[in-house]
């Protein structure tokens, strides 16, 4: 940390690779279109003009799992959908995050029965849970901002 202490924070000049990549990752995170139910409607209204998600770099709703790096599980994951979700998660390239939007995705919410997977973290590792049934667009954006805060602290060590 010698450089920044000596020169102090001089913006781009003392930018470490870690910060640069973290900055790029948080500002250009492409979500994958994975709407399941009512939460998908709220996710789309976050995409529309009133709560524009493209300010966070999420304008290109990437449909193909290859090109996306944030999977927003919006809605209830039924038993039949679980293997599909797992396969999609495996197809995403490496730095990937999962944001489980809404109660049904986070913990099965209201449906505590045979058909619904009780919480997506049974299938995929989840980074941020957003509560609400369905969460307001602002709530989803608050969740995304907490995810961004977490990524900003990523160390170079854990990539190598």
């Amino acid at each position, binding site marked *: 940390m010698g450089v920044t202490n000596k020169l102090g924070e001089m913006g781009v000049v003392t930018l470490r690779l870690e910060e*640069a*990549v973290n*900055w*790029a*990752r948080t*500002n*250009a*995170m492409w979500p994958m279109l994975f709407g399941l139910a009512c939460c998908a409607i709220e996710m789309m209204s976050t995409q*529309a*003009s*009133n709560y*524009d998600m*493209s*300010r966070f*770099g999420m*304008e290109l*709703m*990437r*449909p*193909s799992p*290859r*090109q996306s*790096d944030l999977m927003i599980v919006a809605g209830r994951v039924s038993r039949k959908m679980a293997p599909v979700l797992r396969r999609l998660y495996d*197809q995403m*390239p*490496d*730095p990937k995050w999962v944001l489980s939007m809404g109660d049904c995705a986070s913990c099965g919410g209201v449906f505590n029965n045979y058909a619904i997977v009780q919480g997506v973290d049974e299938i995929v590792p989840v980074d941020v849970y957003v509560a609400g049934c369905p969460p307001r667009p602002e709530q989803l954006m608050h969740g995304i901002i907490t995810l961004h805060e977490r990524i900003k602290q990523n160390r170079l060590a854990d990539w190598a």
Partner: protein
Amino acid sequence: MNTLTTIITLLIFPGGLCLLLLGLAYEWVDRKLVARLQNRVGPRWFQPLADTIKLLAKEEVVPENVQARLFTVLPVIALAGALTSALYVPLFGLKPAYSFEGDLIVAIYLLSLLTLCTGLAGANTYNRFSLIGATRTLTQLFSYEAPFLLALFGPAIVAGSWKISEIAGYAESHWLVLTQPVGFIVALIGLMGKLELPPFDAPEAETEIVAGALTEYSGRGLALFHLGKGVELVVGLTLVAAFYLGGVANPLAFFVKTLVILLGLAGLQALFTRLRIEQTVGLWWRYGALLVLVQFLALIVWEGWVA
């Protein structure tokens, strides 16, 4: 001594780095305009830059039963094609770095090399959506290539030479957009076809075939294709501006004119629905080619008879 200057012009100033950044900047202007037309706040100024850095830092997934070497080389060729075509075009209002007789055709060919690579990339990967995307990219390539080329030949005939710098020089004195309005419109719409902007983005139709020919690409490959498209946008804009809007003598004129055309493109982009592939081809061959040929005929008669 001049090897140093050529290296600088090739790599830094009008050539490589500045062109890539200009390509990203223009792409941002385009996305911001379209967003503002849709009454929403567009992406922030550093968005394409962040996209590219993130993509470069991403894991490169090479799907199996695909020629791995071809898979990784194609994006590089695409970007190389776009960059070399930038050599012959008067960027930033300066004289083109290198020009010889007939470099207009070479520049246009190198630009369409990029689309060819995208098509080949789509065909190479085994994914169904990218196969459909590849066929669509190539069919659309044949549809807009001829009218776009003929539209750019109009000024060449009037200027009486194939060298871009000479045509640009001739175009500076008199505004060709007034004498050949039809050619200008077809060139503009041809540019939209070449860059696959919304009315003609059937090859990359998000809602039908997942991501068109580039479905399987992620990480470095996608970043290179992304940059290639940005460079293609800049080169295409300078060509149309140089030929039709009275040449690009000084940097200020270059920026003003290209941005005016970009505003026109963004407006058209936000206005239209995506056309089906056979409608685009029909539109091009029925109206595009016909209009340009009529204008071509008028030019030849006028050139042969009057001059």
